[in-house]
């Protein structure tokens, strides 16, 4: 397929992609069925010695299961192009009843040298997982979608309950005020561009890099967290952070199999940014009650904002997500994420984003009707 497209594009410089360029497979006994696939606008273009493939897909899926779907993740793989790199498209905060159809859009661009030959589809889209209302899950879960979708659903329940409480306590005006406050916070968030590379430093010349120093994490104490961060460090050189590691202790009564810490950095002017998530390495963490373990990653992160490097002066960590061995997931409470230090830097949950978007587009009454559905 790739070779055939290459031959066509070399002649034409710009050509539509033939059908069959992307394979869509949701697997056997899947709770969803592909109703239609459209990729009319997809094109292949020659740019110098490279071929650029723009894939615009519109999928329509149907819920063929007896349960309500609350989240779905599709895996996108182009083995030939990305050499092991892969992508995924997740739709959390769904509420799809049995028999209902729902759309998913995938906008993807692949760049590869013209000379690469090969057969098979350019990209493969397959189902990684479906989460239902009762938190049951279906799918191969190659990308840990079960944990991610469950965490999104827990955050969604938390935030819907929060907005319902406000509606009950302060009425329509109270809810409107809360929505406006959230929209303001979303537009005030300082974007931080981060480049992540597994392994060594991003800067190639050690002579040019500022002197590397070992910087220690400060931790935000969250009383109801099942995990307590004890100590942690990262190697810092200017706007680069390398090899972060944090020792954590399980203070819950259940064994833990995954911990994710949030990582906040402050620059020389004291501005704070949500820099990254620091998850425990996959796979292998098993943390019995009362025991300690290290959360560490052999990666280098490069921070910048508006094209300018953000030199790291201070680092703060907090427990953001915990998965227990029984597949249940803990996320911070609403009281925790409303703490001033987190309120300034944390993006809202997917559900808060959806609900504020609904208020912004359809008004307060549509939002109240939506909250009543849950």
């Amino acid at each position: 397929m790739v070779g055939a497209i290459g031959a066509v594009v070399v002649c034409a410089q710009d050509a539509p992609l033939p059908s069959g360029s992307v394979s869509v497979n949701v697997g056997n006994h899947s709770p969803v069925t592909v109703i239609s696939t459209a990729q009319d606008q997809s094109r292949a273009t020659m740019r110098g010695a490279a071929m650029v493939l723009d894939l615009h897909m519109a999928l329509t899926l149907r819920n063929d299961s007896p349960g309500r779907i609350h989240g779905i993740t599709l895996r996108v793989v182009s083995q030939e192009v990305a050499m092991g790199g892969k992508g995924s498209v997740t739709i959390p905060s769904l509420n799809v009843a049995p028999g209902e159809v729902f759309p998913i859009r995938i906008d993807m661009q692949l760049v590869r040298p013209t000379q690469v030959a090969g057969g098979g589809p350019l990209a493969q889209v397959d189902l990684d997982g479906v989460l239902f209302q009762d938190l049951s899950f279906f799918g191969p879960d190659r990308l840990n979608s079960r944990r991610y979708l469950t965490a999104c659903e827990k955050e969604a329940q938390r935030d819907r309950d929060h907005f319902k409480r406000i509606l009950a306590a302060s009425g329509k005006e109270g809810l409107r005020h809360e929505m406006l406050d959230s929209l303001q916070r979303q537009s005030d968030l300082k974007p931080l561009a981060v480049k992540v590379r597994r392994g060594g430093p991003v800067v190639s010349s050690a002579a040019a890099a500022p002197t590397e120093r070992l910087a220690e994490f400060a931790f935000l104490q969250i009383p109801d967290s099942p995990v307590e961060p004890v100590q942690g460090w990262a190697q810092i050189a200017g706007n680069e952070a390398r090899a972060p590691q944090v020792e954590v202790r399980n203070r819950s009564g259940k064994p833990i199999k995954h911990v994710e810490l949030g990582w906040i950095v402050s620059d020389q002017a004291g501005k704070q940014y949500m820099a990254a998530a620091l998850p425990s390495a996959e796979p292998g963490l098993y943390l019995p009650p009362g025991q300690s373990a290290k959360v560490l990653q052999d990666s280098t992160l490069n921070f910048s904002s508006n094209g300018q490097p953000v030199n790291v002066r201070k680092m703060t960590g907090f427990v953001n997500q915990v998965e227990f061995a029984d597949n249940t997931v803990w996320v911070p409470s609403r009281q925790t994420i409303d703490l001033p230090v987190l309120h300034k830097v944390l993006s809202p949950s997917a559900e808060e984003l959806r609900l504020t978007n609904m208020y912004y587009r359809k008004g307060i009454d549509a939002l109240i009707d939506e909250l009543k559905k849950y």
Partner: protein
Amino acid sequence: MKHPDQATLALQAGGDLGVFARWKVERHLASCDRCRDEVDAFAALREVSSDLSEIPEIQWNRLAAEMKANIRLGLAAGECVRAGEPALRDTPLFTGMRALVAVASIAALMITGIMLEHPAPTVLADDGMVVQSTSNGIEVSKGGQMLRLNNPDNVDPQQRVTYSPDAQGSVRSRYVDPATGYVTINNVYAE
């Protein structure tokens, strides 16, 4: 009657034309004595050429020595003829602005060469797999290959796209899809 050009006839004589072109020329030759003669002449020339290629063994060392001696003789003769003229370096050709331009050009060439040989130290070592956010999406790249998941063009400015990197080697982008109204989370992984 339209005749084939000389190049076509020469290729026909050597049997180097493609199938269709050869068929066309042969049809023409069947009815054109003039072109047939041309082709015969080219064919005869090929015979001579192949004979010429069989040249007797040459004593290269002796030939080289003779050429060197002839060159020296030519240089000596040139000096005799130029006697009394100013030396080359004293001619106006290599003085003033022209000399300055020549020196500046050489200097620029050398500086460019040094810069290309020793790149600026902040050049990124992107020989490994890198994940990052870009102006319109998130991408994983290695060498000249790249997979990018794009954001829609018309995301609400009030609720812009947020990016969340992960120290394990992935980056997430999140937005409300204006077409579907769903929160969509794209993720690329360097694994």
